[in-house]
Structure formats: structure tokens, C-alpha cells
């Protein structure tokens, strides 16, 4: 089931400049807005596949619910590491939302490929910044995904509403949204920074596989980090990976509140800036080494 969206229309008389010769701030924004709009249209082409894929992705949640039910029954306790059974399932559902924002499939591998085969030079000869282009592109893809997935996610969350004992207050919900947007930025710039390593090592997909596999566990996608031994809880909460899955979910559940919540968001913002700067520095340093292979 797939619907073909209307192809994007380009108005040649549009006053937006085609070159970067007159880079007034408005035109820069318009340029990346165009990238975002084209990417949006591209992404909407296969929304039927989207719906099916999203439903399929949630099916393992059934076995996860049953497994945790068995774990709680076996333990004979109503709460494990401060999580009741309902909170545990709610957490594992919310992690899907976190990952919806922070996962960037193919980003690092794509950057590394463009470095390797020389197609990166298109960003050098056109008035287009690589990171600016990619973040516009990803933002459009994420937005489409979120809008398209709203129906299946809505149905699944409605069916699982019994696991959500309480809903966050207005300010907490705003903090949750902020944590998700920061999760998107951390996910984007982290992967972009990994991709930039391609300037020094031609093959980074292998490193990427290992990092992503490890990230699955240490970001709290499998279980809340609080269940781990105290030493590992300390180590993993000091790392940026928790902000890609764990942190937004516990914010929603109200487990981080008051000054801890503000402090948590500040640290999350720090990591977003850190990776943005790192990706930018690696890009500019990498360009000095860039050989533009590929003719």
C-alpha cells in the first residue's frame, strides 16, 4: 500500500537566490527551507510503507510486555529500581518516542560514503553547507515520520493507555518536548561527528556498527539504566547516550523533577552543543585533508 504524493513544484520565478552570492540571513534560511520542503515531499511518497513498518516495529512490544510481566511476577515485588510494572512498560513505549527523534539511520555512513567516493565536493562548489543541508533534510524526514507515525503510535498508545498511571503536567510536558528536540540534535550531531571520521579512515561503517550496537544498551533502550548495578548507573548517566533514549522517557514519567530536571536539560543542551561543535571542527579539519577522489 503506497500512495504517490504530488511531486514538488519549483517556481523558477521565485525570488529566492539560487547562488550564495547574496547571503543575507533571510536567503540562507530560505535556502535550507527549500531543502526541508523537497525532502518532505520525497519522504511523503511512500507513506503506506511507513504505516505498515511502524506497526510491525511495535509488534515485539507484545513479547516485551509479557516478558516483563513474568519478571515482575517472578520477583514477587511491585517495584524494581523504583519502576512499577506499569511504569516499566510505559518507559519501554516512551523509548520508542525518544528513538523516533534521536535515531539517524544512515547518516554517518552516508557522510563517510560521500567523503570516500568524492561526491562531498558538491558542498564545496555550491553555496550549501554540508551540516546545514543534512540537518534540514533530517528535520524534514523526522517531521514526516512523526506526522505519519502519529496514527499507528496513537492507536498503540491508546491501547496501552492503562500503563500510564499519570500524565505529565504542562511544564513537565514542555520539558519533555525540549528533551526530545535536544535528543534529535544530539543524535544528529553525534552521528555526523562519527561520519566525519571518514576523512581520516576511509571505512567507518565497521566502527559505526559497533557504536550503534553498544548504544542500544547504554542509551537505555533495552531497560531503564536504574536497573543496572550502581557503578554502571553512574558511568552511563555521565555519558551523552542516555539523552537519546532514557532521559526523555524518565522526564515524561516524572522521575526527574524540579532542579534535577532543569539541570538534566542543561546537560543535555551542553552535549548537543558539544557534538555540534565537534562535528563542525572535524568537518573543517577534515576538509584540509580531503582528496576529492572520484574525478
Amino acid at each position, binding site marked *: 500500500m503506497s500512495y504517490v504524493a504530488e511531486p514538488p513544484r519549483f517556481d523558477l520565478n521565485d525570488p529566492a537566490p539560487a547562488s550564495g552570492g547574496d547571503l543575507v540571513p533571510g536567503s540562507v534560511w530560505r535556502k535550507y527551507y527549500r531543502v526541508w520542503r523537497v525532502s518532505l515531499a520525497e519522504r511523503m511518497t511512500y507513506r503506506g*510503507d511507513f504505516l*505498515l*513498518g511502524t506497526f*510491525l516495529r511495535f*509488534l*515485539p512490544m*507484545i*513479547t516485551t510486555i*509479557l*516478558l516483563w*510481566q*513474568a*519478571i515482575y*511476577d*517472578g*520477583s*514477587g*515485588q511491585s517495584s*524494581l*529500581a523504583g519502576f512499577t510494572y506499569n511504569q516499566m512498560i510505559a518507559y519501554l513505549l516512551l523509548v520508542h518516542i525518544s528513538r523516533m527523534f534521536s535515531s539517524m539511520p544512515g547518516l554517518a555512513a552516508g557522510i563517510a560514503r560521500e567523503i570516500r567516493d568524492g561526491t562531498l565536493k558538491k558542498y564545496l562548489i555550491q553555496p550549501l553547507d554540508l551540516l546545514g543541508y543534512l540537518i534540514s533534510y533530517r528535520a524534514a524526514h523526522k517531521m514526516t515520520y512523526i506526522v505519519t507515525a502519529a496514527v499507528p503510535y496513537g492507536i498503540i498508545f491508546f491501547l496501552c493507555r492503562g500503563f500510564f498511571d499519570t500524565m505529565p503536567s504542562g511544564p513537565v510536558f514542555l520539558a519533555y518536548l525540549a528533551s526530545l528536540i535536544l535528543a534529535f540534535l544530539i543524535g544528529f550531531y553525534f552521528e555526523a561527528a562519527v561520519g566525519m571520521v571518514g576523512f581520516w579512515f576511509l*571505512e567507518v561503517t*565497521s566502527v559505526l*556498527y*559497533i557504536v550503534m*550496537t*553498544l548504544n*542500544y*544498551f547504554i542509551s537505555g533502550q*533495552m*531497560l531503564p539504566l536504574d*536497573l*543496572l*548495578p550502581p557503578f554502571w548507573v553512574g558511568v552511563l548517566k555521565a555519558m551523552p547516550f542516555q539523552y537519546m533514549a532514557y532521559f526523555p522517557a524518565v522526564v515524561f514519567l516524572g522521575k526527574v523533577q524540579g532542579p534535577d530536571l532543569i539541570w538534566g536539560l542543561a546537560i543535555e543542551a551542553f552535549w548537543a552543543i558539544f557534538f555540534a561543535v565537534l562535528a563542525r571542527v572535524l568537518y573543517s579539519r577534515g576538509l584540509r585533508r580531503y582528496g576529492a577522489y572520484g574525478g
Partner: protein
Amino acid sequence: MSATIETNELPASGAMTWRRYPRLYGRLGLFTLVRELSFRGNFLVKMSVEILWLGIMLAFYETVFARTNLVAGWAKQDYLFFVGCYFALNGVIETLFLENCNEFSNLVRTGDLDFLLLKPIDEQFLITCRRVDWSVAPNVLMGLGVMLMALWNKGWEFDTVRVALFGVTFACGVAISYAFMLVLTSFSVWLVRNQSLMEMWWLFSSLARFPREIFQRGWAVSLDVVFTYILPILLVVNVPSRVMVKAIEPRMVGFIAIVTVASLAVSRKFFQRALRSYRSASS
């Protein structure tokens, strides 16, 4: 389009024909091993990822069993044996069949399937067994290692009957999984694209990762019935694991044997039916 070309080089009798399959499979395995070793870096990375993945699974269950002694009636070492059995069985499937089945839709789309169908050999054998993915073969050993470690920690006493039954039921589990994959692969003839089919396989195999007992409560009982007796994917890891670390259930051992024969026969028929619907794309 099923073709059998007879030449003077081919053995005349059926017995002779079947005897060449192990030799041919050995050659295909050797060829893919040589190819794999040409990319040793890739081999090592894929192996590292698999080791890491097993480590993550073990860390998950270590964390869980730090909080409870039993999960669905399975004690820690019994459960770890189950995890090892799943890892080994999945390793066998991925090593021998997954890559071949994944490739099938490409063969259909490009029309390259023609070349395979013209070969004087069984189509199902050639399509599903022509490549061995050696990079995931160590998973079988890793799974075996986890199983042995769990048995050692459990203080398991050697029992020939259990080991023999485990060998048989494990082979049955592999065969049933293969049959499932073959049916899903066959759909590629009609659908051409198989991405969602492989997602279906992933979903099926993710069901096999858990003991049946977690499904035996409330609304999940219907899932247990469906995936044990109608689409019996829950049998493939549960039966061999139970034979080794729980009470032997002759009824389930007999049942998995019957299911194996039936699923292999049905999947072969279905595959042949799919091939008859194949309309060569390129010619």
C-alpha cells in the same frame, strides 16, 4: 519455469544424483569461505558486532536475574541455556540460509533467477543453499559456549538420552525455521520486493526468543496456541531447550518431529508453486 537439463556428465541413477549434493554443498561452502576471507576486516567486524550483541543479551538477563530468581518458571541457568540455544539456532539459520533467501527477491526482480533455474540441480537447493555466510558462523559456537556455561553452572549431569534428543529437536528447530523462511521467500515471486517479508521473519524469530510460559496467561494464551500449533515457531527453541534442562515431554518431541516433516513438505510445495508463477523479468 523448472528446468532439468540432462547431459552425459550427469549421473543416471537417482542415488548417484543425490550423492553429488553433499560434494556440491562442500564446494559452495569452500568457495564462499575463500570469498569471505578476501575481506577479513569485514569478517572480524561482523564477528565483533555479534559478540557485542551476545554480550548485551547476557548483560540484560544478568540484570534481570539480579532482581528475580525465576522468569516464567525458568531459573537463571536454565534461561541462559535457552538464550544460548536461540543464539546457536539463529546462527545456523543466518549462516546457511538467510543471505540466500534475502537475495531471492533480487534474483526475481532482475531476472537472474533464469540462470539458476537452468542449472541441472534442484532449484530449492541451489537458491537457498548456494552461499554460506561464514561471518555469522561463530554465533553457533558462541551459542554453544553459553549453553555449556549454563549447564556447567547448573551442575548438570551428563545424560545421553537428553543430548541425543537435544540434537534431534535442535535439527528439527532448524528445519522448521528454514521452512518458514522458505515460505516467506517464495512470496517474493509475486511481491518482488521482500523488505517487509524479512521484517516478518525477524518478527517470527523474535517470538522464538522467549519461553512458551510467558504466553500462557490471560489474553496471550491465544498467541501460545497460534504460534505453537498453527504457525509453530514457538517450538523451535523451546522444545530442544526443555529437553536439556527441564522434564522431557515425549508428546512435544513427537509433535516437533511431525511438524518438521509437514513444514518441510508444505514449504517445498509452496516454493515450487511460486516458481511456476515466475515470469522471467529480463528475457
